């Protein structure tokens, strides 16, 4: 490994000196550095320039991943020496990237362990090799400094509190996977993490297989429902999502990545708007949209076994929905099943779970769903 990185460094320096604009990836295609192509993700991009890997994240953040400290870095780019040896994760989505790359040893801090199932991470938290730095907005700066990570992956949608960390001088890398509207786009962020921790080959292989499984099933669904989709007939099953809490209905928008999975699984999502994240709707609005939906997807944390009785007890009007009456609630309990910490890198499994419900004839008869199943 040391030898490899030495070769890379040499090649990079030589190329930089001679001013050639060759691709570094060609030189060491045998190593874990491979040329990187971003296919689905829209919030990060990768270019190789003069032996330096340039990564643009969003519009404002630009990083130059270098393998030696004296590598030239273009203006406007923040230099990051890779592979990084330690980092702090802010969200379950980021953590899923490390989990699937088997790189928990790089993670030195996380925000919390609520609803976290991964035994390895829990063990590491217990023995102190991963610290809990506190919630967004209330980070414990001392713990962060003590962990001394090379970079910190942040999630700018959250409550913030990053200014205090910025003061410490640690490089903050925004992980914008949550912004992706395409499930595969979200999964593709594993490549970004792979580049930072020197596991790009593994990341690419992993993503390619997810992509293949996802697209295979998606096209299977499309060809079998082609007639229904083209004629806009009402034959496609309809699905609604979310629950009412304290007077408002929490639903995901029509452009949310979950809505995309519904569509790819051959169902029509009742909300057809341009909202990308969650939205709060009034009961009457949601009821008018969803009263006759065939299926109703619910994800929550419920102690014990969730049931139709429990669903009705939480809000008496829930029984007015057709999916409730016909016992077609699609359910996943985050108290019993790891969810956010792993689904971002398994959109193919999510898709298959939904296809198994919407179009059971398209999956093998003995398919055992991992996340979602019909509530009994």
């Amino acid at each position, binding site marked *: 490994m040391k030898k490899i990185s030495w070769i890379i460094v040499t090649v990079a320096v030589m190329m930089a000196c001679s001013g050639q604009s060759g691709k570094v990836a060609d030189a060491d295609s045998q190593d874990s550095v491979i040329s990187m192509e971003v296919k689905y993700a829209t919030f990060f991009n990768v270019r190789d320039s003069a032996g330096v890997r340039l990564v643009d994240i969003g519009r404002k953040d630009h990083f130059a991943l270098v393998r030696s400290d004296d590598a030239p870095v273009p203006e406007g780019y923040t230099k990051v020496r890779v592979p990084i040896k330690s980092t702090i994760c802010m969200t379950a989505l980021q953590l899923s990237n490390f989990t699937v790359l088997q790189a928990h040893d790089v993670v030195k801090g996380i925000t919390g362990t609520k609803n976290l199932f991964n035994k390895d991470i829990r063990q590491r938290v217990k023995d102190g090799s991963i610290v809990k730095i506190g919630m967004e907005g209330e980070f414990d700066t001392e713990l962060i400094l003590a962990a001394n990570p090379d970079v910190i992956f942040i999630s700018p949608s959250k409550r913030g509190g990053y200014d205090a960390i910025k003061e410490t001088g640690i490089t903050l890398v925004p992980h914008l996977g949550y912004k992706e509207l395409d499930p595969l786009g979200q999964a593709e962020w594993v490549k970004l993490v792979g580049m930072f921790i020197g596991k790009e080959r593994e990341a690419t292989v992993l993503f390619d297989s997810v992509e293949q499984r996802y697209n295979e099933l998606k096209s299977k669904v499309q060809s079998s429902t082609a007639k229904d989709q083209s004629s806009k007939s009402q034959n496609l099953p309809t699905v609604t999502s979310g629950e009412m809490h304290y*007077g408002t209905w929490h639903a995901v928008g029509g452009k949310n990545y979950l809505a995309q999975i519904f569509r790819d699984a051959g169902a029509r999502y009742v909300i057809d708007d341009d909202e990308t994240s969650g939205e709060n*709707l009034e009961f009457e609005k949601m009821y008018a949209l969803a009263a006759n939906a065939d299926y109703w997807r619910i994800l929550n*944390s419920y102690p014990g076994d969730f049931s139709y009785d429990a669903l009705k007890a939480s809000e008496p009007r829930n029984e007015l929905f057709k999916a409730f009456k016909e016992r077609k609630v699609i359910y996943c309990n985050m108290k019993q099943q790891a969810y956010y910490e792993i689904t971002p890198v398994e959109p193919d499994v999510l898709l298959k779970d939904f296809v198994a419900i919407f179009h059971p004839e398209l999956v093998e008869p003995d398919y055992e769903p991992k996340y979602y199943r019909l509530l009994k």
Partner: protein
Amino acid sequence: MRFSKFIVLFVSIVVLLVLNLLLGTVRIPVGEILTILMGGDAAEIPTNIVLQSRLPQALTAIAAGAGLAVSGLQMQTVFRNPLAGPSVLGISNGAALGVAFVVLLSGQLGGVALSRLGYLGDAAMSVAAVVGALAVLMLILWVSQRVKGNVTLLIIGVMIGYLANAIIGVLKFLSPEEDVKAFVVWGLGSFSRVSGNEMMLFVALMGILLPLACLLVKPMNLLLLGDRYASNLGLNIRRSRMLVIVSSGILVAIVTAYCGPIMFIGLAVPHLARALFRTSDHRVLMPATMFCGAALALLCNLIARMPGFEGALPVNSVTALVGAPVIATVLFRRRKDDVSE
């Protein structure tokens, strides 16, 4: 003259109630709504929207608005302080603390969040809110028996409120984000939480408690004169002070349990009623406050759900946004009249 004002108020409540039933994010033809209200045959979805969503919401708004307004009037009278309101004695903070314990702390202990315990469900929150509010109320009463001055009692009440808030802050800090969010959403306040049997129970409770509060009209009038005059007139100051505080506290506790903490109405509506009726006689003020409270709550509920806003605005923002200018205008105009008279 006063009678005609009551008629106007009553008519405006009826009009607002009808508007609340007619308008909403989903468009339903007026004719269909009338059919539904007459118990006629109509499609299932509009029927459910009107009877299970709009009607309960409007009735809840009426009951909650009236309850909070009366509670505020009682507090202002007992403490002879125009800035007093239901939240001033820390009673609503007590309710919030109760809910915080259920939503935030129970999740930490044994990993079982009470708030999601099926049949207990949201009922656990209501119970917690009532228990929290009554606990603070008991504390206040205990103090009120030992403290002479109203101002001291008021300050102690405010301190209890701060204390409750501080504990909530610590609980929030210790809790995972998801639970904190649930608590924040509860704190927004809403008239649309209750439906079905719960709504019936709430309206029935208010239907009993509000008339009971009216029984206190006489001692309240005397309290207004000041402690010395009142006791000269044969009033047992401590006892009546306690009764009024209990009545006010229970009203707030129950409204908060069902709707979350609704701000502003309790503080502002008594002023509106005083300005409209130009009296401090509680025989007039009590029903006037009740009517104004109900009307203002209906108006706010209507505005919060105006078509065009995607989803309902939080009621708490609307109460102050709509209420503050309305009440300021009324007070301002009265001041001008006073000058010209």
